[in-house]
């Protein structure tokens, strides 16, 4: 059995999974409420909280799986990319467990983890496929050629898609993190009410800063009452622009790579408009419960990376960028 640990951003997560990919537990202690008061994830605050939550999360994951550390054969942990101070809490905890129990350690790339969330369950997606990773920190197009091999073909030039949702939500007075609130509000709005720009960037990259500015201008000129009456339309139109950019980017990546299979992973994959548009196209979508950062996806990816025995994991460090 694999015990997976994930602390790259603001979720303290641990999971237990069998070698053949059966998820026995998947505990996610979200810090979203904690960071809401700062209007964004604060690295130092996140790191402090990870230290408090990591052991309870691991204990809970073992308990829910009906198991103990004695039955664990391997420790998997996110090594990066992410917030280094946050990653180091999970990495140090994982090294301690592996060393004390004489277990191998599998350092996992966080993006590989998101991709590997597609390799679970009955509908496991087989490479090769084009994959859009859309989260609060990343908007990447990947060419996934094997379960353990992917190549980046596009990224965002400014904000990540999840960030664009959250910033838009804040401009609309929906608080932070407001991506989910914006998604809910959009259902009552007219996505054609406003014509927000969908940036055309050469190659396979994305850009969302122009869109954010357009929303800012649209909101700035409204009185409080006007904003109240148009909020849903603004949200729906803004969401439509982001979704259009993502769908178009993913389709174009598939065409450029000459692959039929397309997939979407990451927190933004929980967006209902995006799912509604991609489902009819036959795009594989991460199950809702695996969209945000979690330990199960780290366990899943660990099956395809080399396991390190002590002393080979002794010196490994966290890394911040992809």
């Amino acid at each position, binding site marked *: 059995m694999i015990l997976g640990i994930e602390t790259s951003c603001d979720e303290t997560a641990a999971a237990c999974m069998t070698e053949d990919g059966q998820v026995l537990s998947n505990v996610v202690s979200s810090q979203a*409420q904690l960071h*809401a*008061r*700062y*209007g964004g994830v*604060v690295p*130092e*605050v996140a*790191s*402090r909280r*990870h*230290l*408090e939550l*990591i*052991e*309870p999360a*691991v*204990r809970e994951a073992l308990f829910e799986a009906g198991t103990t*550390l004695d039955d664990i054969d391997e420790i998997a942990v996110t090594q990066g990319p992410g917030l*280094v*101070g946050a990653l*180091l*809490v*999970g990495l*140090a*905890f*994982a*090294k*301690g*467990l592996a*060393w*004390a*129990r*004489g277990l191998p350690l599998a350092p996992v790339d966080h993006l590989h983890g998101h991709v590997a969330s597609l390799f679970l369950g009955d509908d496991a997606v087989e490479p090769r496929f084009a994959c859009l990773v859309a989260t609060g920190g990343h908007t990447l197009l990947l060419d996934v050629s094997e379960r353990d091999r992917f190549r980046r073909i596009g990224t965002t030039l400014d904000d990540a898609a999840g960030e664009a949702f959250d910033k838009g*939500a*804040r401009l609309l*007075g*929906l*608080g*932070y*993190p*407001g991506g989910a*609130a914006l998604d809910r509000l959009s259902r009552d709005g007219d996505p054609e009410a406003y014509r927000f720009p969908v940036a055309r960037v050469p190659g396979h990259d994305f850009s969302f800063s122009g869109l954010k500015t357009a929303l800012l201008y649209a909101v700035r000129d409204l009185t409080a009452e006007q904003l109240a009456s148009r909020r849903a339309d603004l949200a729906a139109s803004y969401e439509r622009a982001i979704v259009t950019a993502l769908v178009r980017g993913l389709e174009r990546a598939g065409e450029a790579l000459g692959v039929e299979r397309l997939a979407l992973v990451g927190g933004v994959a929980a967006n209902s408009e995006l799912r509604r548009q991609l489902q009819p196209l036959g795009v594989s979508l991460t199950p809702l419960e695996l969209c945000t950062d979690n330990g199960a996806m780290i366990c899943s990816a660990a099956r395809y990376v080399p396991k390190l025995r*002590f*002393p080979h994991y*002794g*010196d*490994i*460090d966290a890394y911040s960028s992809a």
Partner: protein
Amino acid sequence: MRAGSALLALDTATQHASVALVARSDGRVLAETSARPISLVAGIQRLLDEAELGADAIGALVAGTGPGSYTSLRIGLATARSLAFSLGVPVAGVSTLQALAAGAPGARPLIDARRGEVFALAPDPVCLRPGDMGSSEGEVYVGNGAIRYRETLEAQGAVVPPADDVRHRVNAALHVTLASEFGDASALMPAYLRVPDAERTRKEFPVG
């Protein structure tokens, strides 16, 4: 040596993590070394190898709780929590400043707090600028904060021993003599002494 007969002490408040293995029966230091915080478990393995012991010899842990570099401290405490959990042993936290003071009788310990500040005992741990120490003539300062702010301190008439003086070094073996309450690892928290910047500068955001 029997299972559980050794204490493992570690401190990662400074860039040189200090680790020591001490006999529980008579307090004898069995082995000690320093390591980069990121390579802490490798350092612990070296100690066990040197003492010809296995991990099961560790019967309790003592961990330095700082203050010091936050990231580095968290590596140490995450490791201590993880070892306490996986080895099933109790752990005691010890103030790194108190341990430095114990290793340098008569001297005042200073730990670099970055941004022009140091952590000091007054008599409780505080964070202040070295220029505001209010030193008396001939007062001796030790620790990486003393080395870093040697000029400022000496200008106040204080004395800072040469950088290679052992009193500047955090020595985990000393922590063992100061450890009193052994218990659950969940009580083990870093002595931060400073709130995150974001807390000081934060505006009220509506919570969504």
